């Protein structure tokens, strides 16, 4: 219910004073869990893109809540926009966008209270988004993006999500007189018990407010099917569309170099390996009894030829590695040798990558100029 906003009824922004402090605290705790999970998920998918997308979408939800939707019977109602947000952003994005819109309404337009902000977000943003998501996914499963089924699914999802939110609010109201009353039996907060609060709340939403959300959700899906069907694929659609999602350059590079450093540190572990790698033999290995036994062991018992194969003998002198056996000749410690080899290899790749990127950048610049 709206108290001081624009005088509209039918929505369920609970004002301060209707719920006890412990109910408010519980709802805040539950909502905080939802916000945390949503922020974490959305950050993982959208990276730095999350903030402008959620902010602008929250502004959209806010303005959508101001639409006076004409309903059958000559009355008007207001949508929350949570179903539309869920279809386009997914449930996690919808939770954040709708919560931000609800917070702005409470802080600046007096629509809903400050102590009840957690309850309002829990009801409309969290429960609303998940009910809308589950119903829409179930009903539109495996259907084409431009199918009629999606329009109906969105409308039903909108209707059910608003009614689920209203039911939550009704339960929160209904438990107040049971739990919070003085010694004389006076209810201290919302005065009506569950058997009155639930029907009183649900009648208005089942017959009016639910249809407002149904019409706006179904109507929007129908419109988007014609003009921008990519938006109906959720975040995946946004990713495939013209909006690109980039990993923050800093974080990616930092993680990459950290991984490289760890691998370099682990390079001397190669010394611990026993036996011989199959096929990586040199001519001297054929004259060593111990190595011959190792070759036979990794070749299913088949003994190597007595003489060094002529091809191997001929080609082995074609190229002499600067660091034979992963260690420069002047380094005596095999551990240090492994480490130096790793550093040398990484450095070499780094230089080659840099040169390649400079060449590619120049080529791109040339293409742009032409």
């Amino acid at each position: 219910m709206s108290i001081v906003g624009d005088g509209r009824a039918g929505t369920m922004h609970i004002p301060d004073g209707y719920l006890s402090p412990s109910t408010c605290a519980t709802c805040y705790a539950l909502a905080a869990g939802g916000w945390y999970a949503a922020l974490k998920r959305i950050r993982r998918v959208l990276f730095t893109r999350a903030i402008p997308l959620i902010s602008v979408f929250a502004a959209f939800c806010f303005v959508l809540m101001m639409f006076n939707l004409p309903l059958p019977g000559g009355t008007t109602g207001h949508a929350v926009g949570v179903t539309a947000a869920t279809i386009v952003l997914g449930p996690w994005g919808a939770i954040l966008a709708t919560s931000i819109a609800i917070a702005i309404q409470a802080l600046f337009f007096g629509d809903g209270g400050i102590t009840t902000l957690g309850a309002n977000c829990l009801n409309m943003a969290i429960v609303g988004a998940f009910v809308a998501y589950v119903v829409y996914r179930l009903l539109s499963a495996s259907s084409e993006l431009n199918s009629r089924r999606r329009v109906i699914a969105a409308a039903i999802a909108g209707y059910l999500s608003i009614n689920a939110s209203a039911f939550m609010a009704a339960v929160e109201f209904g438990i107040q007189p049971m739990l919070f009353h003085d010694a004389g039996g006076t209810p201290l907060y919302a005065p009506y018990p569950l058997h009155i609060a639930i029907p009183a709340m649900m009648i208005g939403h089942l017959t009016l407010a639910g249809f407002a959300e149904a019409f706006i959700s179904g109507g929007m899906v129908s419109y988007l099917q014609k003009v921008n069907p990519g938006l109906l694929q959720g975040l995946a659609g946004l990713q495939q569309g013209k909006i690109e999602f980039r990993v923050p350059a800093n974080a990616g590079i930092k993680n990459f170099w950290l991984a490289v450093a760890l691998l370099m540190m682990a390079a001397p572990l190669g010394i611990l390996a026993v036996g011989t790698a199959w096929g990586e033999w040199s001519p001297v290995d054929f004259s060593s009894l111990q190595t011959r036994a190792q070759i036979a062991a990794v070749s299913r018992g088949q003994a190597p030829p007595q003489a060094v194969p002529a091809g191997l003998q001929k080609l082995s002198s074609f190229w002499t590695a600067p660091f034979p056996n992963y260690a420069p000749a002047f380094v005596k410690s095999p551990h240090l040798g492994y480490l130096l080899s790793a550093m040398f290899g990484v450095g070499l790749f780094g230089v080659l990558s840099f040169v390649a990127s400079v060449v590619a950048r120049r080529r791109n610049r040339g293409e742009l100029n032409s």
Partner: protein
Amino acid sequence: MSRHFFIESTIRAFARALSRALASEQLVARRGLLQALDPRVRVIGVFSLVLASTISRRFSVIALLFVAAVLLALSSSVRLQTLIKRVWLIVLGFTGVIALPAIFITPGITVASLGGVAVTQQGLRTAALLILRVETAVTLTTTLVLCTPWTHILKSLRAVRVPTEIITMLTMTHRYIFLFIETANQMFESRQSRMIGTLSGPEQRRVASRTAGVLLSKSIDLSEEVYLAMQSRGFRGDMQLITEFRMQALDYAALAGFLALACAAAWMGR
């Protein structure tokens, strides 16, 4: 319902929101008690009083908080007329309607009979508690919003440990709300100016949902542009709020006063 009812009523709602924001900005510039305080003190002080009014179970204590809220509003250049029109009558209209049946249906000691229906003492008490509590809370929050620039309120939320990311989102949302209100307003006005006949119910709903669809597409496009603009200015996900707030001796005294009043009310009203 008149033929353009929904378009006109939506345009009126937009105009009301814009005029309310404008009125708030005008009041912010006036001199007053709240205006003289650090915004963080205002936010923490008002929130603590709202919390105290919710915690308190005694009518007399909530009434005391209500008087304090009215004095705070009057000393902050908020007119009594504004409070009556914008807060008290509207709250009385909605919460009063909700609380009214409780007078009759709450079980308890009968104190009077109205048209053969018993009025109970418990019913009267619960209705009065509910109305007074909501009046107090809304008077306080409206006074805060009328006397503090919105950007300052949002920045002050950092003082109550709201994450920077959320504050950034709230600030950006707040900014783009006005842009979207203007865009939606223009769409509805242009639609209305082209209409010469009447629209049936389904046609009106189609207009509303298409307008919402256009607004949604625009919001996605805008978010992309905003993101690119942020990136071009070096945004990499780290956010810092620039706050120019400085606490003075008066602010510390006012904060202590607010908290003392809230704690006393919570203790006395337990």
